[in-house]
């Protein structure tokens, strides 16, 4: 058997591909792109939530939110390590993020404008991410699949945290309910855009499906998120901002309105409300920390020399 045949055989038999296994270049490249994008999303995603940590309205909410953001930093770290097994360093991945060569989830280019947005982000954004990540637990690359198993456990806790915030507001005073509805209005469409273009327009999906990196299509995942979320909104007494949303008895699913793809592609291309701000923030923190990293390296080097000398 050739290397490629062995690889294809493993994929066909659902045997995980491991870092030392031979893999096609394009398979490796696809995973480097997807896994680093996933890691970047965790890290950039810290910013819109970090925006409310200092202003959380109760001590309990503050601690839960900060712990959640810390989890995300941990997920990022974990995913960078998993992505490094593909033969590219974290530094390189980060450079690609900062120079715009790599992307992250566009959802984080939307601003968080009220406390209710912390609810919407947890409920909708983490909710959408879970649908995607649960599916990725079965992805063909071993380190990626294992990191998803671990991450999914914490994500479901995050989603509950978000739902709790939005539920408290939805059941609160008229002002609070208005705040919750406003957050839903702003985050609904960007959340369903998180699943990417329609299958017919998604040029990257085809190989990824053959290789079993991706197990379900964008549209299938989006539909499953919508079907899961609409009843939750009804339970909360909130209105999904889509006049075309309607239960389709025949399909056993909700029909929904047309996504604004012009907005989607513009945010992807860097024209969203916060694209520049998010990257600037990341670059600034990185630059401010440069002297610290240099000092730590210099110290470690000196310690090594001392050890050597003795």
């Amino acid at each position, binding site marked *: 058997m050739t290397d490629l045949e062995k690889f294809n055989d493993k994929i066909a038999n659902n045997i995980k591909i491991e870092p030392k296994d031979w893999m096609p270049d394009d398979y490796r490249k696809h995973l480097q792109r997807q896994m680093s994008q996933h890691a970047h999303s965790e*890290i950039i995603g*810290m*910013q819109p939530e*970090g925006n409310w*940590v*200092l*202003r*959380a*309205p*109760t*001590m*309990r*909410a*503050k*601690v839960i939110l*900060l*712990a959640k*953001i*810390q989890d995300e*930093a*941990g997920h*990022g*770290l974990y995913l*960078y390590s998993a992505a490094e097994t593909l033969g590219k360093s974290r530094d390189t991945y980060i450079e690609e993020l900062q120079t715009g060569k790599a992307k992250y989830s566009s959802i984080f280019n939307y601003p968080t404008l009220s*406390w209710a947005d912390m609810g919407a982000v947890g409920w909708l954004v983490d909710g959408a991410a879970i649908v995607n990540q649960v599916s990725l637990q079965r992805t063909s690359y071993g380190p990626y699949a294992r990191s998803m198993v671990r991450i999914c456990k914490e994500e479901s806790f995050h989603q509950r945290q978000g739902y709790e*915030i939005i539920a*408290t*507001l939805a059941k*609160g*005073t008229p*002002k*609070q309910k208005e705040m919750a509805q406003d957050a839903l209005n702003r985050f609904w469409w960007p959340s369903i855009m998180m699943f990417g273009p329609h299958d017919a327009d998604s040029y990257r999906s085809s190989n990824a499906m053959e290789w079993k990196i991706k197990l379900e299509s964008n549209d299938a995942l989006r539909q499953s998120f919508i079907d899961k979320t609409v009843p939750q909104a009804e339970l909360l007494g909130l209105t999904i901002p889509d006049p075309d949303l309607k239960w389709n008895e025949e399909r056993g699913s909700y029909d929904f309105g047309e996504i604004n793809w012009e907005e989607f592609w513009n945010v992807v291309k860097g024209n969203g409300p916060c694209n520049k701000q998010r990257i600037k*923030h*990341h670059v600034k*923190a990185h630059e*401010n*920390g*440069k*002297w*610290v*990293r*240099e*000092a*730590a390296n*210099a*110290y470690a080097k*000196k310690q090594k020399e001392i050890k050597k000398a003795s």
Partner: protein
Amino acid sequence: MELKDALIQYSLRIADSSLILGQRMAEWCSNGPTLEEDIALSNISLDLFGQSRMLLSYAADLKGNDESEDTLAFHRNEREYFNCLITELPNGHFGDTIVRNFFFDAYCYHLYNALKESKDETLAAFGEKSLKEVTYHLRHNSEWIIRLANGTEESINKIKQSVIDIWPYTGDMFAMDEVDELLIEKSIAIDLNTIKSKWNNTIKEVFERANLEVPSIDVYMQTGSLKGIHTEHLGHMLGEMQYIPRAYPNMEW
């Protein structure tokens, strides 16, 4: 002064210091020099918030009425906050944060170690629990002091300046008044004079390993926290922290 009032005041001082430093540390979220350090700084922040909640709740219970950890955190003004001045100092650069926290950690370490023996059960339990956490904070920040002070020329210069800038706020941590006197007599509070020499030793020890000079004890020290007289920084912190409960009073979150 009634014993209960003294106990409330004493608890608030410790709770406020943890809360305000916790809030400062939360500012580091997504701003750390490495991802690993970002996580460590959030960890410290979470520990501090946890400590503060324990004693805010205790003070609220003692006060009675409808007081809670949240009314105390979000509905007191600057003059009603009693955190040590050092905890409200801005983060500055990473070295400033490390030096500020190191001075404060060393103080907490010795204070909580002694507080474990307090005759007040809650304070003793608080000392027990918090000592574990602050031991880690102290180690984390001591290691950074040593690293930065033996790193590059830039880091050495920076850390030396941080020490000079922050030192004058260390005296305030050891100030005492009639609250302390009353509670020391009952074996509830700790005589901070006994903490001070231990604190000095810890600073000396770590600074020796870092090749840093301990500043003179004759430096004129800033004070005021016991009376709720703060730096200009605290008002801005509270303005941000208390914004929602103040803008939307009487609501559940």
